[in-house]
């Protein structure tokens, strides 16, 4: 009986609920969503930016695919992806993209007695391991790359990501560019059909499997290798030089990349030229509509990005990210002025 008496109230409540869903969102809050990889640094920038300007920028990690879908569906002010869209796709969807921040993917191993940076590897050998063609640590190819290092006669346990991921996209793009076999048989994507190995969920999962399994090799984002104190490998790069993963070598890959000729900034920073370039470097991209739905919100978002380029470098490096080189920033800011416009055709930035 009591429930029946309350029925009108319940109905009224439902009606109210329906009305409030329909009301517009507050205007002083910018929403973005997408790639998981840059989430911590965007959150850091957003906090500092809010303290300075009072504008809230809410970025959420829902995955690169999610970011692309959301900006196309107009549910967010900007999207983010670790995987750049092709220029033709951008044009078709009316989007503009640019690189915002960088990081690297690092191969890590768990071999008793081998410390971080003690081993080096090159692309074709890494591809052979992940294809299941090199199965033991004392394989001649590995011994030849590491004269003087005692490699155990132990089986290699291959660990890869089980979930779709920008990290896997960078890793497989790199392997495709250095190994014809890999390119032909497996290819590059956020998730591929792995010929061998065990899948871990997220960077955390791969780090934990690698940490638990002696004789294993995995690949994780730079920050996870550092924070989990995993034994990373040095790599032979495009120019044949052996480099360690660090801010300088990531920057070098970006600086040597040919951004000016990459239409719509469609450029994957793997296997870039330059003696100091880390071979598996990647940028995370921002996506916005070239014709802004709400110019005021678009302008607010762009102001945040400009502020981040100018003031966010130190915070990014503290979190093991790499800021974009100044030359690229200038190019990007010109792109904003040229191609992001309101309905009246006036640039919003």
């Amino acid at each position, binding site marked *: 009986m009591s429930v*029946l008496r309350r029925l009108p109230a319940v109905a009224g409540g439902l009606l109210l609920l329906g009305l409030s869903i329909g009301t517009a969102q507050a205007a002083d809050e910018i929403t973005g969503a997408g790639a998981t990889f840059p989430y911590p640094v965007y959150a850091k920038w957003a906090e500092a930016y809010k303290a300075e300007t009072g504008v809230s920028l809410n970025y959420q990690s829902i995955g690169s*695919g*999610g970011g692309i879908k959301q900006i196309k569906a107009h549910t967010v002010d900007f999207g983010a992806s670790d995987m750049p869209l092709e220029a033709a796709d951008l044009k078709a969807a009316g989007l503009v993209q640019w690189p915002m921040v960088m990081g690297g993917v690092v191969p890590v191993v768990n071999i008793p007695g081998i410390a971080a940076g003690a081993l080096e590897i090159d692309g074709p050998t890494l591809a052979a391991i992940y294809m299941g063609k090199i199965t033991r640590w004392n394989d001649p190819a590995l011994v030849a790359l590491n004269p003087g290092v005692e490699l155990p006669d132990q089986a290699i346990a291959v660990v890869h990501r089980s*979930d*779709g991921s920008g990290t896997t996209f960078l890793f497989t793009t790199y392997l495709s560019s250095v190994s014809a076999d890999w390119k032909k048989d497996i290819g590059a994507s*956020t998730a591929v059909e792995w010929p061998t190995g065990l899948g871990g*969920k997220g960077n955390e999962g791969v780090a934990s499997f690698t940490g638990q399994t002696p004789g294993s090799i995995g690949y994780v984002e730079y920050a996870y290798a550092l924070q989990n104190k995993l034994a990373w490998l040095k790599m032979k790069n495009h120019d044949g030089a052996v480099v360690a993963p660090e801010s300088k070598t990531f920057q070098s890959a970006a600086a040597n990349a040919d951004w000016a000729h990459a239409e719509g900034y469609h450029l994957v920073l793997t296997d870039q030229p330059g003696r100091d370039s880390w071979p598996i470097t990647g940028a995370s991209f921002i996506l916005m509509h070239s014709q802004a739905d709400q110019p005021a919100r678009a302008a607010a978002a762009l102001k945040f990005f400009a502020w981040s380029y100018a003031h966010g470098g130190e915070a990014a490096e503290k979190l093991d990210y790499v800021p974009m080189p100044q030359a690229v920033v200038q190019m990007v800011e010109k792109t904003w002025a040229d191609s992001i416009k309101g309905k009246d055709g006036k640039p919003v930035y």
Partner: protein
Amino acid sequence: MSVEEAGPMPDIISPGIISPDIVSAHPVARPLRLSALPAGLRWDGPFRRLTGVAALMVVAALAAMLVVLVIGALPVADRMGAGFLVTQAWNPVTDVYGAVAPVAGTLITAAIAMLLAVPAALGIAIFLNELCPHRLRAPLAVAVELLAAIPSIIYGMWGLFVLAPVLASTVYPALIDTLGPLPLLGALFQGPPFGIGVLTAGLILGVMVLPFITSVARQVLAEVPPVLREAAYGVGATTWEVSRRVLIPHARRGLIGGVMLGLGRALGETMAVTFVIGNAHRIHASLLQPGTTISATLANEFTEASGDIYVSALTALGLILFVVTFVVLLGARALLNRTGSAGR
């Protein structure tokens, strides 16, 4: 807005689907003026309609989901055709997708979970209701329900960081040594003991559905009229005989409901499984090797998938899960109805 103003309500009880219809003998079943009804009776129709509308909302929710899934699944159906249902490959690079591996993994893990959880839940319910000291009943019941309160990502991380290493170092090697050499059955327990895989996922799922089945079982067993229980004890039946011959048959319908609740959760559980199943789109004979389930595939790949066909393939998997669930539920219901010894 009161229900009286909502227009004339001529027939109070529509004939047909009520059985046993307690009220139909009442003289108000034919068109009568509302004001002529005894006080309170005019609410009968609206109340009944209200419950019916709620039931329709549930049907509508499922229909909405199906429509969204069917539309989403069209592109991959266009590309793969019926091949989607019989292909084992899952290759986002070449856009070749098949549902065989995740469907098999879903069925196998759910079966393991139910084999583990149903007897355990019944046992726990009997223990709580019949064996356990009165004072401990409520706290223990709450403790079991607490298992349902732990977020599934925590189950996943616990499975990965705590359970899997133990299984890999002790339990699975023992299984491989003892059961591995057996004919037929042995094939289920072979290969290197990774600690993660189909069996681990089934175990975690079993623990996760346990509180759901237990809560319902405990509740329905407790609702059996005391007179039945006391009569049985009175003629000298043991605790087990009372449970087996009186309580369980009497509460059968409710118990089946509890099992359905658990089965539904086991088929659809997402986050915990993705951590411990190893996520390989392959079918292994061995339960100790990595596999995948439909919901684990969705959780792993949906957020990062960007190609249209890729997203569509994942959506189609979701649709298949509905069909699989539907069939499994029908089958489980038929099975349980047949094996039960007495009806309500």
